[in-house]
């Protein structure tokens, strides 16, 4: 019954390309239908590895529509920055909104946390907090600027945004909209910096960038904490969070699967079937492995899926 068709429209209309480059310099436009289906990236930052994959959901594939999730990762002199976003399906150009938001956020953090930036414990909090607030503003502004240049309404670009940055020994985390992030600790524990958005009904989000009020929500969500014994993080759009709901219960299993591969003893969420049995984090081709892992199946859960996994060499 399910089919997969290439998108029937261009990812970004040609006449908007220069505007996209202007508001989000360096943003890579998908070069082919294959890129629209799934993308992935891996990079190393000191003793950390960052792995990102984004996979088009079955509904979008069946309908010949674009993947609306996006993600971006970057290394900085004293750490790294990662962002994932889920463009709202009800917004016609949310794929562009999500791509702009993540690209501008990580680029802004890269600029702010350059080689001359102090990473000493005494100043890292202030520097990081300011950089995160500025990056949030930059993302929102870039989206609004793009809307004005192209004649789109702000709501046409609606997206969630989840971002995490390590600077020295300090972690900074931000989120607006749904999706989830979780931290892995050296003893195997998971912690959750933000409470899950739990309205009465599924799929409903209180705030999307770049709507009025969303930037304030994003900035107010800022959590700063010492890295301490954190050895890993996951940032997930709701296409991953929903099938693994409640994330507070299942994120540990998810991280273990990625680190060690599927295990019969794993307490998977009800009805979820793994698509990839081997470990992902130290696979010969981690990007390909994570993309395959994102193909897990659960009835009714056919949204785009984006997952960013970050782990320290001490993680197991």
């Amino acid at each position, binding site marked *: *019954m*399910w089919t997969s068709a290439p998108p029937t429209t261009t990812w970004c209309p040609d006449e908007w390309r220069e505007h996209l480059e202007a508001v989000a310099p360096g943003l890579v436009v998908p070069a082919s239908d294959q890129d629209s289906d799934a993308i992935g990236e891996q990079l190393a930052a000191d003793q950390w590895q960052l792995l990102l994959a984004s996979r088009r*959901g*079955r*509904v979008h594939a*069946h309908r010949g529509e674009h993947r609306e999730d996006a993600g971006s990762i970057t290394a900085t002199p004293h750490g790294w920055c990662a962002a994932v976003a*889920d*463009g*709202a*399906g*009800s*917004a016609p150009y*949310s794929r562009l909104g999500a791509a702009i938001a993540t690209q501008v956020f990580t680029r802004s953090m890269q600029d702010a946390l350059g080689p001359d930036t102090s990473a000493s414990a005494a100043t890292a909090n202030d520097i990081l907090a300011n950089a995160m607030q500025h990056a949030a503003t930059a993302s929102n502004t870039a989206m609004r600027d793009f809307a004005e240049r192209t004649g789109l309404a702000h709501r046409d670009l*609606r997206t*969630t945004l989840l971002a995490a940055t390590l600077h020295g020994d300090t972690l900074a985390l931000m989120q607006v909209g749904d999706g989830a992030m979780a931290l892995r600790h050296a003893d195997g524990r998971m912690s959750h910096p933000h409470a*899950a*958005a*739990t*309205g*009465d*009904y*599924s*799929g*409903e*989000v*209180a705030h*999307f960038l770049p709507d009025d009020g969303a930037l304030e929500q994003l900035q107010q969500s800022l959590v700063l904490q010492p890295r301490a014994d954190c050895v890993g993080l996951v940032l997930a759009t*709701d*296409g991953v969070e*929903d099938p693994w*709901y*409640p994330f*507070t*219960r299942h994120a540990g299993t998810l991280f273990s699967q990625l680190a060690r591969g599927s295990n019969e003893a794993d307490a998977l969420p009800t009805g979820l079937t793994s698509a990839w049995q081997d470990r992902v984090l130290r696979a010969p081709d981690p990007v390909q492995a994570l993309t395959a892992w994102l193909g897990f199946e659960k*009835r*009714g859960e*056919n*949204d785009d899926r984006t997952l960013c996994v970050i782990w320290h060499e001490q993680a197991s």
Partner: protein
Amino acid sequence: MQGTPIESVKSGIRQLHRDLLGDPQAIESAYLAVLTFGNAAQQLVPLTEVAMFNPPDLIANGATNFGEGLRLLLESFDRELVRTTADQKGDWRPLVFILSDGAPTDVEWPMYAQQLRERRPANIIAVACGDQADTQVLKQVTDTVIQMQDMSPDAFKAFFRFVSASVKQTSAKVGAMADGQGITLPPPPPGITIVP
């Protein structure tokens, strides 16, 4: 509603069901229920997944017990919908189409209309069928009222295609706003107008 229009609604429900059976996401995630309000209100089909749904027979009778229908609708929300909790994801906000070709014959309907407005448990689209439907009554239930002047079988066919497209759209993840105002319905077919 009686005669040809009620037959067209029956046929439209069958068409809607067939259409949804052709959509894999609807098969996996959409549920249908049918409630009627005439001399009495009744739920002909409880909330049922598309693959198990049997289109019901509809029998028209004289009165328009609108209040009873709204009360039953509220009860079915409480009984049949799954809300999100710390342990489980809830259902999508339901999409309800209320079809009426007349005016209420009961006096209690405003109380239930107000409850629906206050609780906003669903995205409700009220459909005024023909020129005898009281759009002002429907407006007290929901802001989204559409008028279908033509009650021919072809008009109902087009209307149920619109319903089908709406269900498919809302049964996919659309990232609606949590205030329930964010859903975007497909454009209604020609001949159907939005009541301001």
